[in-house]
Every structure is written in structure tokens, then in C-alpha cells.
């Protein structure tokens, strides 16, 4: 099977996964105990049968579960994700607001984790069992095992409060609070408005949360790169390369690293997906209004349309990332057969 056929088959599979995700999310969020009415209506309003009835009718809560699901799906196919019970705005508008913030943050975090993960992994493998290897491994273990919220609080305290080299929470300083977003992506909007002061301020606000988020992924990448590089370095073809008289840098960077990267690629894809949905604690501490926070608050208020919207979006990004990883596999390693 060719790459094209494989990709088409994977896309069809992705659609099936997404349908499965909608069913699972719908059933789980509707069967957990708890009533969205009590989470969203005031005490006295709850005692008024007329308000309760109108509310149930308005949000479709008076219909049976399969009926609710079919209505939801038919609306979804027409691009309508419903209206959030909590924010009372179209879910698509909510997602448009929250997704770009998380997307920017997760992309930067992934970028940082790849760079540092690769550098640390290579150093660690090449200088195996030397002092620097132990040091780098200690950093990676710290990154993996340190709870993100603790790291977030501590880094904020240290770099913002004590050392004053990082900004406080939020996406921008209060001086720029009137800046209106067009696409939701601060980087794009500030550049297109020619406001490089805002771009600078946005990046400045992004760096600390991104580093905290990068911590865990960087640790995993370091360890994976190290072990697969060590594995590759003991193989015959590298001995041949060295015997040919190639210098060690070329041997490592050209011959060993490329092969060692294949298992690491899977981690890039998975961790990127994880970052998009799993940033809730870091977003909360840095007050970065993003998707993780939105998913969390929707779940706690049983805001069904919002839960569905966030789940579908996260699942979509996750699946697309995996698809890209699989296709990239085929490109960088022709031995992979579909």
C-alpha cells in the first residue's frame, strides 16, 4: 500500500475515532450523578417550576438521551456545536477564544522540550556515565516527577516575585489590556497590527508557563533519546563509520541521531496532544485563559455542550498529531511498511 492510500485510510479511521469519542463523552457526561440545573441556577430560581421548565426546554434537558445525542450530532454536522450552559455563548465562540491561547503555549512548550530534550539526550548518551550524564539525568527525572502545579507556583514565586525577571500572570500586562484580538493568536494579531511591543510582551508572558509545561516532556525526550542513541551507537554500521575515519560529530549527528529519533517521534506527537488538554493546572496558576481550563470548568458545572465541544476538539488535535507522526515515520524511515 502506498503512502497516499495509507493516509486516506488513516483519515477515515480518524473520523470513526471522533464519532466514538462523541458517543463516549456524551454517555459519560450524562450518566455521572449531578444535575446541570443545580450547577447553573440560583437557589431561589431553582424553586420556581416555570424557570426550571423553561431552562430544561431551552437546553434540551427534557428529552431522552439518544434523542439529545442525535440532535447534537445533526447540529454538529452543520457546524453548530450548541450553546454553553454556563457561559451562554456558542461553544464554537468559546473554543475560538480559548484554543489559540493553549495552542500558542503548547507549541512553544513542545518546541522548548524538543530542543532541550535533544541536546540533553545527546550529551547524556555521548558522555555516558560521566558526571554530566548524571547531572542531565537528574534534571530529566526532576522534570518528569515534579508536579506541574508545584513547579508553576515555585517558578512564579522565584522568577516573578523574588528575582523580578519574569512577568506575573495573564497573557499580557495590564497596560495592554485594551488590545483587541482578531484571530485569538496573540503572536499573529500583534504582528498583523504592527504592535511589536505587544508581541514582545506576549512572548515574555509565555516563556515561564511554557518552560514549566516543557519540563515533563523534556524529561521523557531526554531519556528516550539517550536510550535509543545508546542502542544505535553499539551497532555495527557505526563502528564501520568510525573505522572509515569520520569524525565523531558526524558519526553521532548524521548516522546515529537520525535512527535514534524514530522512537522519539511518537513521544513528540503524544505529548503535544497531552499538552493541549492537560495544561489546566499551569493555565490556572499563570491565569492563561486556555482550553484546559475551559474543559475543567465545563466538567465541574456539567455544561454538556461545552464538555462535548472541548472533548471533540482535543480528540481531533490528538488524532491529527498521531496521523502526522505516523506519516512522518514513513517518510523518514522507508523500512516502515503500511
Amino acid at each position, binding site marked *: 500500500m502506498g503512502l497516499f492510500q495509507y493516509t486516506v485510510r488513516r483519515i477515515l479511521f480518524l473520523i470513526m475515532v471522533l464519532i466514538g469519542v462523541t458517543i463516549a463523552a456524551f454517555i459519560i457526561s450524562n450518566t455521572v450523578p449531578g444535575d446541570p440545573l443545580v450547577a447553573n441556577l440560583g437557589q431561589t430560581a431553582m424553586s420556581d417550576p416555570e*424557570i426550571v421548565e423553561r431552562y430544561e426546554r431551552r437546553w434540551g434537558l427534557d428529552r431522552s438521551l439518544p434523542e439529545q445525542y442525535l440532535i447534537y450530532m445533526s447540529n454538529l454536522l452543520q457546524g453548530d456545536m450548541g450553546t454553553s450552559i454556563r457561559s451562554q455563548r456558542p461553544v464554537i465562540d468559546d473554543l475560538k477564544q480559548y484554543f489559540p491561547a493553549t495552542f500558542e503555549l503548547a507549541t512553544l512548550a513542545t518546541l522548548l522540550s524538543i530542543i532541550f530534550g535533544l541536546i540533553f539526550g545527546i550529551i547524556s548518551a555521548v558522555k555516558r556515565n560521566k558526571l554530566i550524564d548524571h547531572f542531565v539525568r537528574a534534571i530529566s527525572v526532576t522534570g518528569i516527577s515534579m508536579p506541574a502545579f508545584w513547579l508553576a507556583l515555585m517558578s512564579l514565586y522565584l522568577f516573578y516575585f523574588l528575582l523580578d525577571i519574569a512577568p506575573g500572570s495573564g497573557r499580557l500586562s495590564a497596560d495592554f489590556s485594551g488590545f483587541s484580538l482578531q484571530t485569538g493568536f496573540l503572536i499573529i494579531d500583534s504582528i498583523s497590527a504592527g504592535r511589536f511591543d505587544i508581541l514582545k510582551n506576549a512572548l*515574555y508572558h509565555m516563556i515561564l508557563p511554557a518552560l514549566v509545561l516543557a519540563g515533563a516532556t523534556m524529561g521523557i525526550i531526554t531519556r528516550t533519546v539517550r536510550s535509543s542513541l545508546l542502542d544505535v551507537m553499539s551497532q555495527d554500521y557505526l563502528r564501520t563509520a568510525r573505522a572509515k575515519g569520520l569524525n565523531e560529530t558526524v558519526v553521532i549527528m548524521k548516522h546515529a541521531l537520525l535512527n535514534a529519533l524514530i522512537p522519539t517521534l511518537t513521544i513528540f506527537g503524544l505529548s503535544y496532544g497531552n499538552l493541549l488538554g492537560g495544561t489546566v493546572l499551569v493555565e490556572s496558576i*499563570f491565569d492563561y485563559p486556555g482550553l484546559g481550563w475551559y474543559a475543567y470548568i465545563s466538567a465541574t458545572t456539567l455544561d454538556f455542550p461545552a464538555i462535548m465541544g472541548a472533548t471533540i476538539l482535543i480528540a481531533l488535535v490528538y488524532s491529527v498529531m498521531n496521523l502526522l507522526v505516523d506519516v512522518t515515520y514513513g517518510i523518514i524511515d522507508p523500512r516502515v511498511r503500511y
Partner: protein
Amino acid sequence: MKKYFALLVAISFIFILAVGCGDPEDIDTEAPDQEAETEEVEDKQVVMGINPEYNTFDPAHAYEKSATMIMKVLYDNLVTFEGEDTVTPRPMVAESWEISEDNKTYTFDLQEGIEFTTGNTLTAEDVKWSFERARDLKGNPSFLAENIKEIETPDDYQVVITLHEVDPSFLSKLTQSVFGILDSQVVQEQGGTQDDETDDAKSWLDNHSAGSGSYILDKFVPNDELILVKNDDHWATQPEIDRVVFRHVSEPSTQMMMLQKGDIDFAFDLDSEQIEMLKGDENVEILNSNTFSIFWFHMNMDPEIGGPVSEPKVQQAIRYALDYDGLTDLAGNDAFTPYSIMPVGFLGALDPEDGIEQDVEKAKQLLEEAGYPDGFEIETGVIPGMAPDGVSFMTMAEKIQADLAQVNITMNISQEEVSIYLEKYRSGEHQTNVSMWGPDFPDALNQLAFLPGQTVGLRANWTEEMNPELAELGHQARTEVDDEARKELLEEIQRQVLETGPYAVFVQPVRALAHSNDLTHVLYTPAFQLDILTLDRQ
């Protein structure tokens, strides 16, 4: 692959360099079109750090506690309360008013020449349209308007409101945000109607204000920020602050750091420990404010659900068993125990000094008389991780658990997620729980919800038949228009509830807030929270 990798590294380094070179102090001086900004910086701006629950600024829907202070400056009402007073409504858009003999018809004469921020003139028609919309959209706060039977407008500056039932708290309700007066013409142009099936103005009203208030809603991005700018043409008040920015800062510890660094001027959500830590900071001032919230231990009157706690003697024993001083200490910030269900600050609230005090021996004796000398076991629903007005449900529950253990009552805490807790509470399924109530509008009549057959009473399965005399007192208080007579009724109700009610009220919290010390005229009231109109900075 190598090329890509090199590219990746290059991009990242440029990125990091760009960030690294940025000095936070000089960022805003380098903006290309900075002249307009510089002018704004000279304006007086206040930045609030808040973890708000508000999500709409449409008067027919806004009901969240933190929305109150915002709505108060965006929209004008017919009447208002001034300062900390919640007993005497004062004129606002209505210059004067008269109440008919049967106490059901209110005639308001409006101030002439008031302009909305849109430039249109405020007339009686706007009042009628806004109130009918508030009532008929059936939003969260609509119940406050449902007693309105009819609204007439004999001329442009007179409004006649007729009620279904006599309601002595009607003027107090009129001060609430649901009765904010909208520019009916503009709202209708934005799709506004008086029918919840067709009304389409809410999303517009979430981002724009259509009132005649002292401030204009400039920008609202949910969970990010809210910006209010001064209405320079307001007909009555000219506040000092030109621009108020509410920044969403959900973590109290982050709020504290930002306040100390001067990045925010006001921290709304600090807990009592953080307040203590800030007391030594010379740049920060602490502000204590009474609240109208009460916390109580809730006992089920239905013998099948409540078991022993459904018995009046056991309830009385539990009231005597609690260590009120210990509980208020844990609640922090000078919290105290009110007499009963009426928070201090409301009409008729009895002196807390005359309330109940801990008496373990008496509690044991009552339990013996009730036939439980060896105690019993109970289950108590509690929401963990929540601390409304700075009082943690869990901390309170654990203290009560320790107090009840002294009289051989074993209390098992059932930690419940909010919506599950609320569902059980609402349907009266908890044997006991730790509850909190904040009033819907600043009037003593709110608290009648605690009486048999009413909202809170029914959650303890306390029906009218169980105490018809007390229920009748409640009905009388609800329609008594003479303040003195109403006060006497309310006092009697509190005495009877303390003796026979299924509640042990233990804390009325005092809310502590922190602000930078260059803010002056900071007024925080339990009814409207922070008064933005009085605020100033040195």
C-alpha cells in the same frame, strides 16, 4: 532532517532571544503608536485581581454575586441604597414615589433629562420595557420581578407598577441589577425582545452596556479581563477613576504576589492566612467587611432520613454541643456567630450576644432525655475545596465533628462534588450537612426561606404542618408593610427558629480584602461589594 532540525533550533533561539531582550519596564515605551496610550496612562486606572463567577452583563440574566458591583455602575435603577445602608431606599432615576393604600401600586416620578450612554433620552417607556423583559425572559434573577402584574406609563416621566401581592421588600428588590434600566431602542435594534424564545440581545449586552450608568462596558473577554471606562456625561455622579480593569487571576497566591509587586491594586480572593501574611506589608491595606452570608449545620426533620437528628431535643443538644468561639476563630477575619437565621445588618436581627453558647453538659443531658445517652452515628454532606467568603466548608465540618464527638455523636463526613451535594441538598436527602446561604437581595424577607414549608425549610423536610404557628408568622412578616411591626415579627421568628428549627447557625463571615495603600475611599458593602463610584487613588 538535519536541515529541519537546524531550522527548528534557529527559530527557537530567535524566539528566546526576542523574549530575553525584552525588559518588562521599557516595553510600553517603545510602541510605535504610543501617543494615544500615553494619554491613557495619565488617566486614573485601577486594576483588580479577581476570580469572578460573572459571565453575563445582561440585566435579565446576570445574577452572579461578583456581577453586582459591575452592574451597579453600568446601569441606573429607579431607587438605590447608599453606602452600607440596606434599609432605606433612596431616589435615583425616580425622583420620588408614592405607594397606594392597598400597598400594591407604586407610582414613580422620573428625573427628566437623563441620557443613556448611547445619547437617547431615558423615559418611562424604557423602564416598562426593561422590567417586563427582566420578568418574562425567565432568566436566573427573573423571580425577583415575577410579582409585577402590570406596568403603566401615563406620560414620559411617570411609571405606575402594580403588584400581584403586597411585598414590603419591593423597593429593596428594585435596587438589584435585574431592574437596571436599558435603552429599549438600542437593545431592540440588537435583537432584544421580551420573550426568551426570540430574545437575541444577550450576547451583545455581554460586550456592550446599554444603560445610563456612571461607567461603560468597554471590553469583556470571559475568564480573561473586563474593562470599564468612565461615562463623562453621567447625569448625577462623576467618579474619580477613569478606567477599571478586572483581571482574571484565579489563584489566590498569584493575586497576593501581584498585589505585593504592584501589578494589581486590589485582591478579592485571599484566604485568612494570606491576609495575615500581608498585615506586615506597608504597601498593602487590609479591609474587613461584613457579609450577609450565614453558615449552619443542617438537620433533616424527616425521621426516615434524619433518624435521631429529626428530634427537637437532639437538635437542641447539637446546638449546645458546638464550640462557637472555636468555629468563628477558624472562620478567621473577625467572623462571629449571629443570633439565628437573620444576619447582622438586616432589619430585626437580634443581638448575637443573646444567642446560644456552648454547654456540653446540657447537650449530654438533652441527649439522655431524648433516649440517646450513648450517642449515635450520623452522616454529613460537605463540599470539599470550597470556601465561600473565605470560610472553608471542610474546616468547619471537621471542627463540628470534633465538637459532636464530645457528646458521643459520631459524625461521618461525606465529601461530595458540588453538583451532587446541591442535588441531594435540594431534594432534602441529606441526613445532615454543612450549608451556606447568601441572600438574593438585601432584605430581611430573604431569610424567611428558612421557615417551615419554604425553600430552605423544605430542604430539611420541614413542612408547614410541622409548625403552622411559625409558618403563619412568616406569612404575616411577608406582607407587613409597617417596619416596626415587621421588625417585631422577625424578632419573634428568630427566637422560635433558635428553639425549634432544624439548624445550628454558627458563622456569619467577615470578608477580608487587600488593596494597595494608594487607593483611597475604599468602600466595600455586603449588598453591592466594592463601590467603584467612591474609589480614588492618591
